[in-house]
Each structure stands twice: as structure tokens, then as C-alpha cells.
């Protein structure tokens, strides 16, 4: 319990006494929000997961892609 309290105090006091760090955390938060809540969600779906339900279907699709150029 004593150790947990020490760890809590390390982070609590650390964050509280930050100067430039507050600006950096804000920047990190904005960046992560843009990346995960906007960019990933809207623009970067996982193509194979979206198109197919199972790994077997994904394998079949990729194999078709790889073998369509057969002469």
C-alpha cells in the first residue's frame, strides 16, 4: 500500500509541478484525438477486415489477387 501511494505521489506531484509539460500533454492529447478519433476512424479502415468476415475469406481473396496474372 505504501509503495502504491509512492507511485501515485510520483505521478500526481510530477504532473502538478509541470511547466512546459502541460503544454506538451495538451499537444499529445490533441494529436491522439486527431489520429485515433478522426484519421483512423474516418480514413483508415482495415480493408480486409471491412470486406470479409473470416480469415478463410481473406486468404481466398489474397490468393486470387496473387494468381490472377497466371498466363
Amino acid at each position, binding site marked *: 500500500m505504501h509503495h502504491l501511494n509512492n507511485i501515485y505521489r510520483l505521478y500526481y506531484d510530477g504532473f502538478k509541478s509541470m511547466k512546459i509539460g502541460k503544454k506538451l500533454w495538451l499537444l499529445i492529447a490533441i494529436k491522439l484525438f486527431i489520429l485515433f478519433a478522426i484519421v483512423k476512424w474516418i480514413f*483508415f479502415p482495415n*480493408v480486409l477486415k471491412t470486406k470479409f468476415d473470416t480469415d478463410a475469406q481473406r486468404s481466398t481473396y489474397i490468393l486470387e*489477387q496473387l494468381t490472377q496474372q497466371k498466363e
Partner: protein
Amino acid sequence: MEHTAELIDWSRAQFALTALYHWLFVPLTLGLTFIIAIMETIYVKTGDLWWKKTTQFWMTVLAINFAIGLATGIIMEFEFGTNWSNYSWIVGDIFGAPLAIEGLMAFFMESTFFAVMFFGWEKVSKKMHLISTWLVAIGSNLSALWILVANGWMQHPVGMTFNPDTARNEMHDFAAVFFNPNAVSKFLHTISSGYVLASVFVIGISAWYLIKRREIMFAKRSIIVAASFGLITSLFMLSSGDKSAFEVAQNQPMKLAAMEGLYEGEERAGIIAIGLLDKEKELGDKKEPFIFSLEIPNALSFLGYHSLNAFVPGIHDLVYGNEKHHIMSVSEKMKEGKLAVSALSDYKTYKKEGKDTKAKDALQNFRAHEKYMGYGYLKSPKDAVPNVALTFYSFHTMVGLGTWFLILFILVLYFAMINEIEKKRWLLYAALWSIPLAYVAQECGWIVAEVGRQPWAIQDLLPVGMAASNIASSSVMLTFWLFAVLFTGLLIAEVKIMLTQIKNGPEVH
């Protein structure tokens, strides 16, 4: 599936953009963490509070770089799933393990000890704090290890087997993947280049203080640590560069030929020290590739094969073959590749029809030709040639700048040791202006590594055209510009915050 050239170009451009921006942040973290650890070690050994202040200032600079750069690499993961889904599926099993270990290591080592390093000055003992600082340095470098193991595998795929039922490469030998000579040399060369960049960075900023006649003691101390570290790691970088070139010669001879603009192979091949490529030069014509060039005799034979007399194949030999030196032409490899693709197709059909004996034969046929499978997707032998000019100039810029940094470290260290560094204004300016050059050298290194290996996403097995997803090129174009704006914004924020911090100086960090 045949994708349009436009889609492939935009997908490549987007990946290049995000990778190059991401790499603006990484190398400083790799090197600065070690410089900080050395400075703190001196503080703990001597008890001199000046060293504590010096350490804390550079720690703040590190925090800015870390915060701005954080998660910029994750975008490449997004791109794998969207723009490069074929590639992601095919390499999934190879990438999964290293990237999972990287994620865990980065999270536990960096995040935990980063907090102790920044918040723990008055909370933990000096010794514990110092250990945390060293663990941050080691942890951040180990994170890079796993990414570079994955990249090394793409350049020289080993330790895996392609499963024709799942269309995935499956790892059968983790040690072969981990100790892949390409990955080892790539890791060592990459991290040592990060150490050199961080050293140039610390020296450059310290030189600015000396130019402004501020923070003299802080600047001189920083310079001595960074120049010593930079000098040692520069020598290490040279030797790891030699190892990298050797590996490239063995596994990616086309890349080596492009790096040197070597069209016709030769024995006792030299390295071009300075050269201007003739833009009109085309593969197969009789024109000289260079308008002018200064060559170091025998050096390329030695670099690539550790023998002064070795034959180094040129682009022409690699495309059209060379019987005397047992080099197979791209046309022959394309035939092999097409046989592999055809056998894979037969295997798939026979399996579906339940004809097990025929499927077994087709699989055996596939295994006999799969080494050159990727060539089966090329349209022309010339498709196997990367952009020679970009590879050549990037390589020579990187080497030239690396040599300059070595000279810079020697000069700066010498004048700092005899306490005359403040008087050498020209050297201080040169050090300051070397900061952007160090970033240029870093980016050039990656251009050599990635452009030089084109057209391959996985060397000899999967060309980029087959690796890309079949999506609308307009959506890739849109996200390209989105990232261009986002990253430029982040870069401006980093430079602005960092410059403010530097102008404030170590006293008020």
C-alpha cells in the same frame, strides 16, 4: 490484381511522407537519451549540481521531441491496413511478433522509466534515478530494434515459409529472423546514426549559446560530452555502414549498383567520391553514366565483397544477366516467377476440386520456383531497376555528411579540450548549421534503403504493385495532404516550443 500506377504512386508517396516525417523525431530520441544518461552519470559521480542542471535542460529538450514525435509512427500501421492490405496479410505472421514485442517494450520500459526520469528527481534515490535514465535510453533503442528486424526481413526475407493455403508467410525460425544479417547491420547503422545526429544537435545548440556568449560553462560541458560521444559513435557508424554495404552487396546487388550508378559491372570497381549523373543515360545504351566523376579505385569491390579485386555487378549485368559471373537475367527470373504464380494457381484449383495428388504436385512445382515469385508480376525486366539518380545522390549525400560530422567532432573536441572553442566563431557557426544537415543525412539514409530496394515490398517475392490495396487513389491522395498538413503543423510546433526553450536557457527550464 493490377492496380493503377496512380494508386501505387500515391500509396508510396504517402508512406514515404509519413516515414520521413516520423524519422525527424526518432533519431534525436535514440541518441539524446544516451547523452543525457552520460551527463547524469557524471553528476552522480561528481555530485556537481552544474551537471544536474545540464542534464535537466537536455531532458526537457528530449521531452519536447518525444511528445511531438509520439504516435507519428502509428500512422504507418494505419496505412498497412488500408493502403497495403495485401502486403499486411502476406507478411502478417512475420511482423506480428516483433511489433508486439516492440509495443510491450516501448510501453513498459519507456513509459514507466520516463516518468521516474522526469518526475523522480526528488522522489527516488540518485542511483535509482540514474538507472531509470539509462533504462529509458536502452528501452528506446530496443524499440527501434524490433522495427528494424521487421524492416530487415523485408529487405532479406529469411526464417519463414509461404503457406499457399492461407497466403501468409509463417515464421519457422525466430532466430533466423532476429539475427538476419541485414537486420543486425541495419539496426547498428541506424542507431549509431541517431547517436551522431543527437551529438551534432547538442553541439549545435551549445555552439549557439557560445555565439551569443551565454551559458558558457553549460555549453562547453555539453560540447565535450556530445563531441566525445559523437566521435566514438561516428567510428562505430562507419564500421556498421561497411557491414550494411556488405550485406546489400550479397542480398540486394541492384541496390548497390544504383547507390554507385554502376551500369556495367567490373572487377576492381571504384567508389564515386563525387559525380554528376548524365540524365540522358538509359539502360543498354553506350553512354557514360557520369558527366564527370572522381573515383576511389577498388573501393567498391572492397566495400561490397571485402576484396580489392572482386567483380561488382552493374545494373546491366543484373538486368540482362552475365554468364561469366553466373548472374541470372531478370527475364529468366520472370519466367521462374510466372511458373511459381501458375503453380500456385493450379494448387488452389486442385485443392478446391479435391484433387489431392495433383495439388501435391502443383505445390512441389511452386516450391521449386517460389524463390523468384515476385518477378512473375513484373511487366518488363527494366521494372527491376530502382530510381538510380535518387538512390545515388541520397547515398553520396549521406556518406559526405557523415564524413563531415566526423571531422566536426574531431575539431570541436580538440578546440574544446584546449579551451579555445569560444574563439573559433567559424567552427561554432559550422556546428550550428550542421543541425539541419544531420537531419538531411538521416532522411537520405532511409531513401537509399527504401528507394534502392524498389520495386520490392518484400525482396524478390512481392513487388509494391501487388502489395497495395485495391482502393480509390483519390482517398489516398486526400489522406496524403491531410498528413502533410498535420505533420507540418507538428513540426512547426516542435521547432517553436524547442526554440523558446533553448532561448530561455538551462537556468529556467
